[in-house]
């Protein structure tokens, strides 16, 4: 059994008087893709925002590699190796692929005073990474993001997460605005991310997408976890759907 990478324990979160999360415990192991499912308002986004540092939980603990951590903001989360891919990919559209990949961590060459970007190194690595995430087209790394399609942008975001040795990549509804081909591309990238040693949490509405990639499914309903350890290979979409919508029977 692979070791535990991330563990969120007894998480509670209130927004005013509405309880968004009620005593939720979630764990993710190394080299594992977890699918987090649930209907609107189930609390998936909230839970993940807590893990990525965008919001703070009202109570509960987070453990990484067995050690307790305090994630106060997004910088803390990144420092812990947790990267989040949002629907809009958090890319700067005017900048090139290479500049986006290395944003905030640009390699420099020459005397420190000159602060000179090592653009050759950046472009080399970018080219390699793009191949790694399965982009077979010849896209020069100096292309601005604005020239890329939605799926390609997601691919760049994932490549960035993979390159900087994040342990956990969170994908929050990444396929929402994508077409069929592009969705296939993203799912492919997610699989290759896991294969190269990263764990993922994959949040989606769309069960069909989730079934194609995840190792394990967790279901939230109205702020509570109602199912865990569901193996997609051993169940049906209909069964999972019924869990999401409200029957409390745990499938075999």
């Amino acid at each position, binding site marked *: 059994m692979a070791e535990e990478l991330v563990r969120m324990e007894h998480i509670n979160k209130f927004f005013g008087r509405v309880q968004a999360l009620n005593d939720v415990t979630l764990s993710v192991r190394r080299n594992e893709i977890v699918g987090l499912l649930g209907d609107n308002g189930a609390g998936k986004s909230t839970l993940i925002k807590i893990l990525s540092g965008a919001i703070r939980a009202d109570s509960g603990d987070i453990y990484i590699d067995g050690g307790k951590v305090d994630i106060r903001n997004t910088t803390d989360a990144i420092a812990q190796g947790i990267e989040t891919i949002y629907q809009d990919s958090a890319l700067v559209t005017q900048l090139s692929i290479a500049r986006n990949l290395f944003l905030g961590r640009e390699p420099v060459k020459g005397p420190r005073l000159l602060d000179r970007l090592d653009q050759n190194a950046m472009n080399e690595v970018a080219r390699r990474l793009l191949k790694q995430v399965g982009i077979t087209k010849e896209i*020069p790394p100096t*292309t601005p993001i604005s*020239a890329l399609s939605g799926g390609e942008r997601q691919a760049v975001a994932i490549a960035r997460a993979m390159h900087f040795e994040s342990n956990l990549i969170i994908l929050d509804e990444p396929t929402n605005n994508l077409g069929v081909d592009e969705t296939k591309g993203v799912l492919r990238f997610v699989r290759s991310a896991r294969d190269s040693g990263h764990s993922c949490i994959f949040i989606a509405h769309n069960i069909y997408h989730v079934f194609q990639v995840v190792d394990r499914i967790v279901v939230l309903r109205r702020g509570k976890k109602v199912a865990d350890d569901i193996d997609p290979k051993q169940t049906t979409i209909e069964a999972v759907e019924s869990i999401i919508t409200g029957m409390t029977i745990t499938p075999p």
Partner: protein
Amino acid sequence: MRTLVRLNYAARFGLLSESVSRQSAAAAKGKAILKTMGLFLLFLGTIAAFFAPVVSSAADKAIYYWVSHGSPTDPVWTYFLQGAEQWGKDTGNDVRTSFHSGDVPSQQEAVRAAISAKARGIVTSTPDPGSLTKVIADAHAAGIPVIIMNTEDKTSGRDAYVGGDNVAIGHRWAQYLVDHNFVKKGDFVWMPVEVPGATYQTLETQGIDTVFKPLGVTYEITEAKLDQAEIITRMSDYLTANHSKIKAIIGLGDLVTGSIKRVFDQVKVKAGEIPVVGWGNSTDTAQEVLDGYVNAAMWQDPQATSYLALSIAAMTASGIPPGFDVSVGTLYEKDKAATYLKIMEGSAHK
């Protein structure tokens, strides 16, 4: 391989839309860009043609530059401009005008442009004392005369000055009051002004002193500020408090003199009860003179100033040195006020 990477954005679009073949897409986009640029250059060419001289050459007409330190939105400067344009029409010369709203570098640049364009003469007004000295020297080095109008700078090296002499104007106001027996020894005169300490006020006061001091007439200068509403308030307050002792009023600026009617009405002083003289370059003041609130107002002859300055420039350029300055200023009373009112209202309706 290298050339592929160096394709421009248009070609990149062709590259990334997966359908069309690389080369034809790039060529099509390239053609489109060249076509666009061609249209653009055609457009520029049309503009250039518009700018091209229509007559044989500009060298036939003499070129004069009229460079004002004032603002194009200042109604008083509009009259000055009229005078310059009239002169151009009357003499057939090309008068090129510009306003610089107090921006000294911009004005110096304009005068230097005039020098580069080999102007026959330059007429300009001083923004700050000393700011024109160098450019005037440059103009003289190129053989171009420079006449200063409206705001004088004695040490700038200018060939002549045409404009008001504030000292003389102050003297004329004071003398008017004395000549008409409005003030005598021991009387008190109120002198409101927008900005006490400003050059125009200090010079006017110097002139007034030459008449009042020997006569033993006393006065007080009060601040009214530059906002119309505030001017009326401050002047009304002062008038209310000092009504009994004020024997005459000299408005040291255009705004204060133009406010006399409103102030008198507010304090219930009748027109003519207290004699008033001052500046008269606004329609308000001209109307006040007609209605009897102001006895005599000073018109700074803006059109004449420009006209004469340009004439003197032309004269100097022809080799006749001007050995004099021209002091302007017409003190108009009720009988002439209508003329000036018409001049001012006429330009408002142009």
